[in-house]
């Protein structure tokens, strides 16, 4: 069966830039497949579109207690991220705001279910922040990430000042963005969340900045 983006309701804002790249399904969500052979490219410099993976936010003085009841581990301080056992990331953006990123392991099913299961309760200061249609989600990988970001971002993202689990909210290529250091034992990875309507521009700007490091678009296979 061939997969066509146009047949799916959930479409990345930059789906038309993926050209003829082979696609794959995670649950009912479509991603650029890539292949395991791309792991060398990912180690050097690669850009991956994760915009179809579920993500959601919560804000309020009761949000921390609400998320803990749901079984999430929360970061101790703002601008930190906490990796969950199933691969989700919980970002703490301020004293009372959290941003949850779905996992490739379950195709973001847990986050999507938690977003669908939230109900307004006037006794609780815990408000849902839908993030699927506000932000685009890109993953950048490879050994050159700090040099790459030095070209497009004013914050020092070298490992000494931007360790694993750190979050910065800043300007990337003149767009407001959230950057997360989500390196694994084997692969340097930064997640980048930006305004969804500007993703088209940022995708091109990032590929242009990556060019000198041999950066290319890739799929999710080598990231799993």
């Amino acid at each position: 069966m061939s997969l066509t983006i146009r047949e799916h309701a959930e479409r990345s804002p930059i789906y038309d830039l993926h050209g003829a790249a082979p696609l794959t399904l995670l649950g009912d969500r479509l991603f650029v497949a890539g292949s395991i052979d791309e792991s060398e490219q990912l180690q050097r410099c690669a850009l991956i579109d994760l915009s179809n993976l579920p993500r959601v936010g919560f804000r309020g003085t009761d949000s921390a207690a609400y998320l803990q009841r749901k079984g999430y581990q929360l970061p101790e301080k703002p601008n930190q991220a906490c990796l969950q056992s199933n691969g989700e990331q919980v970002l703490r953006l301020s004293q009372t705001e959290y941003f949850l990123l779905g996992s490739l392991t379950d195709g973001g099913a847990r986050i999507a279910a938690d977003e669908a299961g939230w109900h307004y309760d006037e006794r609780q200061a815990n408000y849902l922040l839908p993030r699927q249609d506000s932000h685009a989600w890109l993953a950048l990988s490879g050994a050159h990430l700090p040099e790459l970001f030095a070209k497009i971002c004013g914050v020092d993202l070298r490992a000494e000042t931007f360790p694993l689990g750190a979050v910065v909210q800043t300007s990337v290529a003149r767009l407001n963005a959230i950057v997360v250091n989500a390196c694994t034992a084997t692969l340097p990875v930064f997640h980048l969340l930006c305004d969804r309507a500007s993703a088209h521009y940022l995708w091109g700007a990032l590929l242009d900045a990556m060019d000198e490091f041999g950066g290319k678009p890739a799929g999710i296979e080598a990231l799993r």
Partner: protein
Amino acid sequence: MKIMTCPLNGPRNISEFTYGGELKQMPDPATCSVAEWADYVFNSENLLGVVTEWWMHTPSNYWFLAERHTGSDEILRTFDPRELFDQRVDFAAPEAAQ
């Protein structure tokens, strides 16, 4: 680039910030006169000296307060508004016009 220190995010380029006006004491909208309310909404002190102002770190939508000298443009201190605003303020809905 001029650098401003955000209480939440740390030192950042000034281009990441948005100015939000002077910190002013809000008159009680239920009891103040129209002239007092208009003065609060539209007029600025525009002092020469150290003033306290609202600023926002745009990428994180975080509002905070800054003490700045309007002569030298030196930012002396930035701090979380919780230092001054530690209670929720509820506004009663205005009664419907008869």
